[in-house]
């Protein structure tokens, strides 16, 4: 069974059909890329998948479970996590706390337990600290655990966002232009990191990216979106060599 199965997804803004008839099937543990010109509707697809917008058509199945039209909270609980095109960290909170908030729905204790520091509180907090530090180590952020997220340099902010998303223990991770604003060297490091996450966490990843080096370097399959519709899909090399994709997106 596929990890994510989307059929005929669509939404309009006013008169604009931003996404229409979108479909995709992503297998477990796959690294899947979503590409397309600016304004094609890629971010909107993410917003539909995560419940920010409600689709006016289509269905979304996550690991066999229908999550179409669910609230963002339910979808997060069901196992989709994401990063944002424009970074959205909890800027006044520490790096560590950013990750710990991510575990909100996995390490529960009541408010009273939190106030009275019950054994349950102590146990869960210790567990969270431990897990969060592990995650931070993976992303080379451990030494900045106590820094406010706002004070991180840009590249580290991007990585923290991924760490936070992983903290929700998702089945599917959505990355919206993770390499934006990075130089090729940094992008190279990011690629290693994404692969590592996929392998280490046994993660299924769908990512949006305009950096073809990253896309061709790590994605196994691609869907190309144009004017809200799927123009091409298939293995990475198939799509990248599709003449339609070349004229509409890649150029040259």
């Amino acid at each position, binding site marked *: 069974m596929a990890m994510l199965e989307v059929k005929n997804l669509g939404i309009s803004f006013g008169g604009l059909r931003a996404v229409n008839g979108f479909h995709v099937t992503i297998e477990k543990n796959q690294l899947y890329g979503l590409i397309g010109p600016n*304004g094609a509707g890629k971010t909107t697809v993410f917003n539909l998948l995560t419940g920010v917008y409600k689709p006016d058509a289509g269905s979304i199945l996550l690991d066999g479970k229908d999550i179409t039209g669910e609230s963002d909270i339910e979808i997060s609980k069901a196992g989709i996590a994401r990063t944002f095109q424009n970074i959205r960290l909890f800027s006044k909170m520490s790096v560590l706390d950013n990750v710990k908030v991510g575990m909100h729905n996995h390490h529960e204790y009541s408010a009273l337990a939190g106030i009275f520091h019950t054994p349950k509180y102590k146990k869960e907090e210790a567990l969270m600290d431990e897990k969060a530090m592990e995650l931070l180590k993976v992303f080379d952020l451990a030494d900045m655990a106590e820094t406010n997220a706002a004070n991180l340099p840009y590249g580290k902010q991007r990585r923290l966002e991924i760490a936070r998303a992983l903290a929700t223990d998702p089945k599917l991770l959505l990355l919206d*232009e993770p390499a934006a604003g990075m130089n*090729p060297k940094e992008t190279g490091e990011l690629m290693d990191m994404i692969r590592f996450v996929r392998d280490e966490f046994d993660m299924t990843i769908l990512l949006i990216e*305009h950096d073809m080096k990253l896309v061709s370097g790590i994605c196994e399959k691609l869907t190309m979106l144009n004017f809200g519709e799927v123009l091409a899909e298939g293995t990475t090399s198939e799509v990248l060599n599709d003449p339609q994709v070349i004229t509409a997106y890649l150029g040259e």
Partner: protein
Amino acid sequence: MAMLEVKDLQVYYGMIHAIKGVSFHVNEGEIIALIGANGAGKTTILHTITGLLTPKGGQVMFEGKDITKTPAHKIVELGMAHVPEGRRVFAQLSVYQNLKMGAYTRSDKNEIEESLEMVYKRFPRLEERKNQMAGTLSGGEQQMLAMGRALMSKPRIILMDEPSMGLSPILVNEIFDIIQSVSASGTTVLLVEQNAKKALAIADRAYVLETGKISLDGNAKDLLNDDSIKKAYLGE
């Protein structure tokens, strides 16, 4: 004489010493690339040049005039435009209103109209979306708008902060073409880019910034073949 000259610039954010004595110059008609890793201080330098930040030390000279203490809006009038990092479009104004705002310092209606036509020609997508609120544009669309808006002031020098960020490959190529054509039409360009390869390819000269200091500079083509650059910024 250099058109733009920065001398021993020192910039602080509170206690953080972000720019530690940077000097460089841009000659009229040149495309100068400023490259460097995340957080090296590129944006800070541009902000200081256009007066959004005040340096603790050093000087910024524009066409022989000391503009270190000149307020930002006066600098625009002198003929300098800045495409800021993160686009900074006026989210609740329409695309058209944003573009008109770019021509704020100009008064000739016909010339403004001409510039508008020129921008629409360069970015047809903006004309299609001219009545959309800028805040709802896609990332790439906003980038085009930010550039178009800067061109509306008909600047003699334009400072661009990562104009290719978030753009599709075809648009990245286009943007670099546009930068070249902007340059060809007589506007001097100071370009901050992460896409060092493309930037160096169109630039005349380049400076490499490392944690607040210039570590390397020279002819762009030479830098493109420099091994340390290749390793550090081109990912080769």
